């Protein structure tokens, strides 16, 4: 799941400052789950912006709010057309993908990001989110006991641990587990410690140029080029 956090209120106020009518648009999928831009956060932000406006002499916005199921698919965005007519700007609480999907779908209205899209991760516990995947496009988890060194090792090294590991923690952050120690322990448990002896050659990230595209059909009839 994509994890994000809401931008500081001050920043949001600054970016919406030039616009009068602001539509705060939530997203009902990842942003709801990570408490950054679901319907509740939309109305919280809405209320907070109105409080801020009520305490300031020089702001004069009108706000509206709406939450769609998923901003990153244009079919969900079609019904928004009439709401957009009443707005000068869209403050999207979708992830970076949602913001861009909105911008692509509604060409004539600016779309502003309301959250900082941070990583792909999961809930460690309720309200705590941890990064787990870097979307490198070349998954090696079968070699590392289901623990991703690219993401969870600060250095992202493929042959660890490095000399910076201390008591199972990382030298960069002593509260953070060393990914390679975790991998070792897990492989030991799985009785696959021989995998620790192998050498993994460096990967060639240049071979996959960005942005990437994946096709699950034989041919496509829309979208020339890439992006």
């Amino acid at each position: 799941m994509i994890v994000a956090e809401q931008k500081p209120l001050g920043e949001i106020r600054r970016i919406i400052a030039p616009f009068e009518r602001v539509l705060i648009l939530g997203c009902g999928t990842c942003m709801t789950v990570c408490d950054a831009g679901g319907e509740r956060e939309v109305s919280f932000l809405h209320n907070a912006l109105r409080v801020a406006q009520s305490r300031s002499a020089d702001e004069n916005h009108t706000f509206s709010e709406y939450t769609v199921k998923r901003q990153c698919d244009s079919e969900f965005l079609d019904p928004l057309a009439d709401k957009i007519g009443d707005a000068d700007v869209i403050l999207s609480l979708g992830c970076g993908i949602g913001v861009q999907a909105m911008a692509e779908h509604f060409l004539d209205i600016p779309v502003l990001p309301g959250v900082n899209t941070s990583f792909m991760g999961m809930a460690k516990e309720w309200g705590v989110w941890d990064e787990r995947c870097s979307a490198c496009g070349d998954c090696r988890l079968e070699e590392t006991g289901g623990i991703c060194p690219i993401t969870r090792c600060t250095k992202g090294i493929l042959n660890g641990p490095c000399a910076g590991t201390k008591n199972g923690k990382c030298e960069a952050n002593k509260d953070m587990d060393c990914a390679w120690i975790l991998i070792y322990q897990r492989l030991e448990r799985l009785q696959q410690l021989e995998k620790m002896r192998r050498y993994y050659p460096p990967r060639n990230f240049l071979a996959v140029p960005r942005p990437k595209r994946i096709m699950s059909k034989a041919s496509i009839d829309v979208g020339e080029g890439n992006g």
Partner: protein
Amino acid sequence: MKDNTQNYRTKRTEKYLDHSLMPPCQVACPLHMDIREYVDLVAQGRIMEALQTIRSGNPFPSICAYVCTHPCEEACRRCQVDKAVTIRALKRFAVEFGGDRMVHAEAETTRPDKVAIVGSGPAGLACAYYLRKHGYPVTIFEAHSDLGGMLRIGIPQYRLPREVLDTEAQRLTQMGVEIRTNTRVVSLDLLFDLGYKAIFITIGAHQSLRMGIEGEESLGVIDGATFLREANLGLKPSLGTRVAVVGGGNVAIDAARTVTRLGAKKVYILYRRSRKEMPADPAEVELALEEGVKIQFLTTPVRIERENGRLSVTCVRMELGEPDDSGRRRPVPIKDSEFRKQFDTLISATGQAPQTPSDFRVSIGKGSTIQVDPVTLTTNRAGVFAGGDAVTGPATVTEALAAGRLAASRIDDYLQHRYPLADKEGGESLRGDLMPETIAMIKKIGRVEPPILSLEARVKDFGPDELVYNWETATNEARRCLRCGIGAEILFQDKCATCLTCLRACPYHVPYLDTRGTIQIPVEQCQACGICVAECPAKAIVLRKPYDRRSIDEELEHVLKSAAESRLKTFIIGFCCQYGLFGTGTLASLWREAKAGVWIVPVLCIAKIEAEHMLRAFEAGAEGVFIIGCGEQCARENTAYWVSQRVEKVRKTLVQIGLEAERLQSFVSGITNEDPATELDKFVEQIGGLYLASVIMQEVKS
């Protein structure tokens, strides 16, 4: 402006959608009273509204408040946690403190057809009440000198004071019911000749059953119904010093306790089964034992002889055999266990049956009861209806009231030539028991019985022996209600992102993931605390009752409007638990004589206050916002935690806006040592200071 804060998708009929289920107490009540509702109103200290709710489902709540056998309490699911809520005693509290005797009933005659009611027991009175409400001219015929039937001549005064009965009778007169006492109806034809279009027979079951033993006709043997009638009409029957009552039902207990109050030295109850099988109300049995009544279980008289002015009763010991038709174990005499006992008087209370004059020409069925169609309540004669004990055999007051109410609507159907309308279904009812995991998390709070007069004061005379709760005990007792059937539901499955917040937040471990990966919130487990509703990031969860959903929003908007209209420049909004300190407790005075500029939004548990509510208050111009919870008094665990989480979130936002974090405070008693009233005073002072500072700052700037 409010429109903006509502999502377009949630704006459909959500506001008025009622998905609440009928709780077990309401299902068990013969009158199907909205018990959950009035208990909750009592818990909030809204006694008048509680009484209103009670009155809407019960024509004579004062009577029920004294004598109802409360099947609701047997059904109460609180039993699974600790003990049932004292529903009847709470009703008593509501009718006493809500001023039921002051309620004025009115009715207008809008229909021409006269209806006669034969008998003025609870069924007759209820039928008269509702027929009057329907607009029919009604006449009650009563053989005795006063209204009430069994309520007056069967139930002892210490259980139902006669003033209560008189008030109800008076209310019926006020409504224009014609009352003819000392009038025994012997022929229904005569009533039809007098112009009555329909007749309701509710003559009760006043005929005591015979014990069927030798010597039953002896002097000194009296039947229970006759004895209670005489005693209740104030005729002080002479009983001697040693009195035996035969039987194990409520009549036997009533008779025994009446005998005690009449001054007999030794009172025995002879019952042929054991205590477990006794049909009498266990609480009454307990009181009788306290008052010195001796109960001889597994004992039955077989022969009575009169010797030297006393009764010599031969009894036999019994043992319990196989269960009989009633499901209770059949008593079987033990061979050669006969023994003799001496009594001055023996009262037989082994059951009663109706005695219908043969001139009524209605068909009589099993146990001398009048046969009626169970749906229409019609007898074999056109226009003649019957109900109450005369149809069911001896039953409870509440059942009789329900029969009277049903009869009224059936007679209405008949007189309007309408096919009987089906009973109004109260919707789906709640089924299923609480799970052990849920029970484990519910705070255990002991049941508090209403106070009872001391033993000496009780047996002295016939005054009522049960007292009323005081305000605090009543509200605390009412707060024990688990609010079955009005819990949370995922109203918008399409919005649910299955984020598992509800599952993680629920203090009672109620929501679960089913095998298809959908979140389920089983209604029979949910405690309606509202925490998941306030936490759900998709706002997909609502409480099943529309009132609960609207409550805080509407109260807040109302208060904000009033605050805006007032001329005071600064104002402070307080969200206060309506159940605890503010509703009824130590801060109640504050609530009533609000401090200048402090506006209170009553909330039904602070865990329901959402962060948006706090911000909304600031938006409307509040200088400060505070939240007062009931702390230790709370019937739930840990509500303060949820508030503190949301308060912290809002405070962070306030700081970003440039407002001081101190402007938002929560006081939960028991968390700090200070008295909440003092804390609140300090807070008000502090906010005043902050306001002054901001004004000065502005002056300086300009």
